[in-house]
């Protein structure tokens, strides 16, 4: 996993609540057996017209979204299906950060596992960011600093966010979660022995 320390990028606003993972990556793309190839299908049904041409009304197809790497979204982002194809698609498209008032639990976890930082801000802070992104004449940029837990835009916006220390460490250092858990192997083995012993006592 690529370590994430601090990131400055263009913000693309998607002011919708309850965006589900079926919208982020529709089921017809879940048949791939690789972790790649999902970026082009990100937000497929919103992003493309029935004939396959880009839908000019959708924000990702607008000039202000060019090169964007930070998605600003409505509450409960990523609800529904557990498909990790959603963060894969977002990451491959180029998103490193998603800012929202709240996230669905599984999606939040899936993002962290893929080096995408889900940033939770207050409703007031999120609306202020939407306002600033909409008002900006040039592409709107913010900086997200994971170590200090701050989002700033250089022109007066400053908000702090928290992310559980264990997760933050993995993100900051780009740790392999399985490798990290395997350091606890002795404990796992001890637990497993006790567990299996209880089961076999019952099963005789």
């Amino acid at each position, binding site marked *: 996993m690529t370590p994430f320390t601090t990131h400055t990028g263009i913000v693309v606003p998607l*002011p*919708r*609540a*309850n965006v*589900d993972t*079926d*919208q982020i990556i*529709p*089921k*017809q793309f*879940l*048949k*791939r*057996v*690789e*972790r790649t190839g999902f970026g082009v299908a990100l937000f497929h*049904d919103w992003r493309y017209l029935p004939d396959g041409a880009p839908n000019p009304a959708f924000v990702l197809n607008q000039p202000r979204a060019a090169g964007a790497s930070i998605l600003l979204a*409505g*509450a*409960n982002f990523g*609800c*529904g*299906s*557990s*498909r*990790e194809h959603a*963060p894969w698609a977002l990451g491959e498209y180029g998103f490193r950060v998603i800012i929202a008032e*709240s996230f*669905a*639990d*599984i999606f939040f*976890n*899936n993002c962290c*596992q*893929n080096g995408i930082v889900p940033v939770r801000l207050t409703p007031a802070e999120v609306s202020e960011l939407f306002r600033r992104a909409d008002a900006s004449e040039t592409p709107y940029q913010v900086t997200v600093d994971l170590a200090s837990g701050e989002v700033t835009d250089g022109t007066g916006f400053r908000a702090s966010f928290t992310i*559980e*220390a*264990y*997760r933050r460490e993995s993100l900051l250092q780009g740790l392999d*979660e*399985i490798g990290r*858990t*395997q350091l*606890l*192997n002795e*404990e*796992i083995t001890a*637990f*497993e022995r006790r*567990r299996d012993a209880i089961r076999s006592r*019952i*099963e*005789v």
Partner: protein
Amino acid sequence: MPRTLFEKLWEAHVVHQVPEGPALLYVDLHLVHEVTSPQAFEGLRLAGRPVRRPDLTVATVDHNVPTDDQRSDIADPVSRRQVDLLLTNARAYGIELYDLASPHQGIVHVIGPELGLTQPGMTIVCGDSHTSTHGAFGSLAFGIGTSDVEHVLATQTVMFPRPRTMEVRFTGALGRGVGAKDLILALIGQIGTAGATGHVIEYTGQAIHALSMEGRMTVCNMSIEAGARAGMIAPDETTFAYLMDRPHAPRGKAWTASVDRWSVLTTDPDAHYDRVIEIDASTIAPMVSWGTNPGMVASIAGRVPDPADATSPEDREAMIRALEYMGLTPGAPIAGLPIDRVFIGSCTNGRIDDLREAAQVIRGRTVAPGVRAMVVPGSMPVKAQAEREGLDLIFREAGFEWRNAGCSMCLGMNPDILASGERCAATSNRNFEGRQGKGGRTHLMSPAMAAAAAVAGCLVDVRKLSPSRDDVAIGV
């Protein structure tokens, strides 16, 4: 300290507690399906890691599989590749697989309980959000992403932040024609699709206690649609009766010992939940979704809501979008909306009890002209059982298609999909835009209500269907 059911299960499975952080939980049962596992196996292979406990891992194919009679020969090469790959991986790592040739094949959340793999007190995970279903047996069961699938394959554990607890108590008795699906839709309608985020729900109360295991699974299944990490119900006599003699259930002395162990899996009196919600089940009418998430529901006697009445600008926006997508007019009665398709099936309502409930409505009636209706049993054993009971004949004679087991039109990864603009009465769990096919319009409801819609050709209150030929014949 009195403890909740959740706390008992949690504490029994913590292998390691990260200070102020998540806990490493041991996983008793890992269920695997073809869509969310290929990348996990690939990751293992690249890192040269084995599967730690193939004996605690069980796989099936369900999402992609065609449900017609030529299904073993999957026409779509991409789907076939995914299904074949699971076969290869299961063989390579020594994992038990219920493939298309198996008489036990079916939707992962149907076959786990059916085979007796799902048992009280277990931790169960699967790369699938509806893993919450298994909580109906008093287990702690939750969906995970593919990175975690790989993590569980490699370590038989999962890192999990401790969720908060929520009790949802359904007091009172359900009315006639009202069932488990209506309970859970009413709850989601009340608290919203993020209403239980970060929580594990325990369902309690008279109405829950009275449900069959199938009904309890329906309720727990849709916990995720309220944002919950898991849903659970304390095991009782109904649970034990369901499990007894299932292929993987303990037998003889082991059975008695197990029931003793399971019987203490209840919330202690005076245990504390972080949140409590109480709903009087007797006030719930048959529910139908009108919008594009499972929180957008109304009683069948209700009307399509008016965005003008929304409480916030965001809600208004969302309602306008949903109504436009669904092709609905604010204020129109829900009952009477004409439908094109009916889908009875899925991990929410594809079990034998669900099919019985639908068949009871269908018996002696026929599918309305112009409506295409299908029943997709949740597993091959459900199909076989239904055929032993003659339910297939009732459905077929009425004009339903009778299919083989799979996820089918719940998500339309196989050829069963809605055409754009088609309106469908569905017993599945998600009415998201495009879920059943791009442009398709899904109304979620119970099996009885979906069956009634098939007969009437429109959304209708099952309690108000005109008498069937059989009803008339026996003088009801």
